[in-house]
């Protein structure tokens, strides 16, 4: 080596100073991290697409599309209390049987219903629009304010399987209360209890 002095470095070692040069050992961990992130993201997506709680499998495959859509039954024909009480109410089984003693009795789904009836058990419906226990929600107030059911529950009359359309989060509730300028509608104790 022309003109070089003696090797002065007392500690020796190579000269690399740029963080990029020594990235080699980090590549493996970065790759692992990337694979992990990808797996997490993919899993999350799969879960959100196919396994979310928005459309649970009901014990009887009841179709809102058939009842509310094709036969044009009004919502409150079955959900009796929506206009006068905080809860809309799941129809009692006698209400179902009022029609289905005669109609479509040979359908396997109706036979399931009959089986529940004969055993004296309620149908274990799964709640699709489930608010947490610390919230106070009154159907009465919202129906009397002139809101159509679809504004929160979505186009139920076109759903074979009932699906939760609105996110039912606090921000979503507040957004509507703000938009419609509900008097003191953003006070916490309007909805919390």
């Amino acid at each position: 080596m022309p003109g070089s002095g003696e090797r002065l470095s007392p500690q020796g070692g190579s000269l690399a100073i740029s963080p990029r040069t020594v990235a080699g050992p980090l590549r493996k961990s970065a790759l692992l991290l990337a694979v992990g992130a990808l797996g997490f993201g993919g899993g999350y997506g799969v879960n959100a697409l196919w396994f979310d709680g928005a459309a649970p499998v009901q014990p009887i495959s009841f179709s809102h599309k058939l009842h509310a859509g094709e036969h044009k039954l009004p919502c409150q024909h079955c959900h009796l209390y929506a206009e006068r009480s905080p809860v809309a109410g799941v129809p009692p089984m006698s209400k179902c049987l009022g029609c289905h003693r005669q109609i479509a009795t040979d359908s396997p789904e109706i036979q399931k219903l009959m089986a529940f009836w004969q055993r004296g058990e309620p149908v274990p419906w799964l709640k699709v629009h489930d608010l947490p226990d610390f919230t106070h929600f009154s159907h009465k107030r919202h129906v009397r304010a002139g809101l159509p059911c679809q504004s929160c529950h979505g186009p139920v009359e076109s759903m074979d399987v009932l699906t939760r359309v609105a996110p039912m989060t606090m921000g979503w509730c507040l957004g509507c209360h703000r938009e419609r300028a509900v008097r003191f509608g953003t006070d916490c104790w309007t909805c919390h209890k």
Partner: protein
Amino acid sequence: MSVLGLFARPETALAAAKALTDAGHAVSLMSPYPIEGAAEALRLPRSPIRRYTLFGGLLGFSCGFGLAVFSATRHLLPTGGRPIIPLPPFLLIGYELTILFGVLATLLGFLICARLPAWRERPYASETAVDKYGVLLECGADGEAEAETRLRAAGAEAIRRGGELMPPEEGT
């Protein structure tokens, strides 16, 4: 291309760097600790970091105060019979964020001004982190020999160039 001369004493290295700078060469001086007068000798401009600090501080204050005002007015939750926008607490938030953003901006300013981090390998000799003082002279591809002569003449006790300054390319 560049050639590095290693000096045993800071005064010689500083003098060499100053002389070469005055002669119009591109020179860097490497030392294990800051050498007084090096910035002046190598004609570095006054550090612009103070502008970063000032800007960061002002931005921080407006962000802090703004965040407090913004968040208090999104959802009105009056507390303690005070106004929705009380000044003493919100100015305090502004004060804290002045310092936070000031620090971060100073860090950013330092990294930009000092040209760090080094994304490519740069000429370096590890002795300059211990007890040697290096004068790095930029030169053309054919000027290495001349540069070496200049550094030797200024009192360099050892010369590094080319492959000794840069590590071999690792398999990337």
